[in-house]
């Protein structure tokens, strides 16, 4: 699965959350980053180039700060110009059909405020309806959003969790599935550099961890099988 992350932010260098996500980006050939304001500082979007780029990927994720329940202006312009008729919709406009469409939202207000009775009054699902409608119109499958609330208040432990969740969001087909996360973790532990680890037996410990995760999976599948058999 190839993933493209389209980032829009008027000043990415001054955003600690965006910087954190850029630094967290996975080292994988299957995942690419495309920063709109950096590519088009004069605001003139190369529509054909953007359309060609989209065709190469299976999953397209839009990463931006959720300004006034919407995106920064360049991303809005990108939607207006790139998702044109005969490409994304209308007669022969099926070029994005079947691909995945997702949002990665950086949000300044706390999560609990996004509900009826909360300070914002509406849920993220309600406020992102225009994006859901775009995905529907162009035949893309709308994914659950990755929402990052109040990044500056996150603890170090929360940030580490976010780093991993972000990587999984970009790399795994079903990032909420335990089984899928296990497979991803085994792969990452196999590939992680041994050079940045000082302990002599680091390879042994990593192998033990991989073995443990795989053994646990066998046990979990067996338990599930017993439960299913018991149902019959």
């Amino acid at each position, binding site marked *: 699965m190839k993933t493209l992350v389209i980032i829009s932010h008027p000043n990415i260098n001054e955003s600690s959350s965006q910087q954190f996500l850029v*630094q*967290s980006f996975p080292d994988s050939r299957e995942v690419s980053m495309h920063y709109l304001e950096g590519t088009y500082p004069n605001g003139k979007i190369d529509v054909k180039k953007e359309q060609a780029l989209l065709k190469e990927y299976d999953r397209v994720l839009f990463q931006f700060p959720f300004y006034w329940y919407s995106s920064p202006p360049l991303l809005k312009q990108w939607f207006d110009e790139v998702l044109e008729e005969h490409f994304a919709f209308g007669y022969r406009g099926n070029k994005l059909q079947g691909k995945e469409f997702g949002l990665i939202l950086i949000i300044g207000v706390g999560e609990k405020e996004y509900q009826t009775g909360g300070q914002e009054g509406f849920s993220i699902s309600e406020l992102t309806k225009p994006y859901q409608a775009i995905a529907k119109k162009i035949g893309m499958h709308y994914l659950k959003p990755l929402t990052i609330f109040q990044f500056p208040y996150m603890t170090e*432990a929360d940030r*580490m*969790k976010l*780093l*991993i969740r972000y990587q999984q969001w970009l790399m795994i087909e079903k990032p909420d599935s*335990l089984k899928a*996360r*296990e497979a991803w*973790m085994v792969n*990452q*532990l196999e590939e*992680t*550099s041994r050079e*940045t*680890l*000082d*302990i002599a037996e*680091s390879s042994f*410990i*990593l192998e*033990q*961890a991989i073995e*443990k*995760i795989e053994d*646990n*999976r066998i*046990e*979990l599948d067996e*338990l*599930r099988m*017993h*439960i299913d058999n*018991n*149902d019959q």
Partner: protein
Amino acid sequence: MEDEQWLINRLEELLKKSRDYKQKALLQAAINLILEQEERKEQLQGELDGRLWNPGNWGS
């Protein structure tokens, strides 16, 4: 659980020694994942035990 604890302690040592932030996050996530698996195993075992004790199944 003793095995798990031994492994988790070793992973924590690795995490402290790692010189790479992304790697630290990965090792912490490995620990969290193993604990999550253990919890899921307990839940499934509980579910299985509950079903085995279901009197409706005793006759079969």
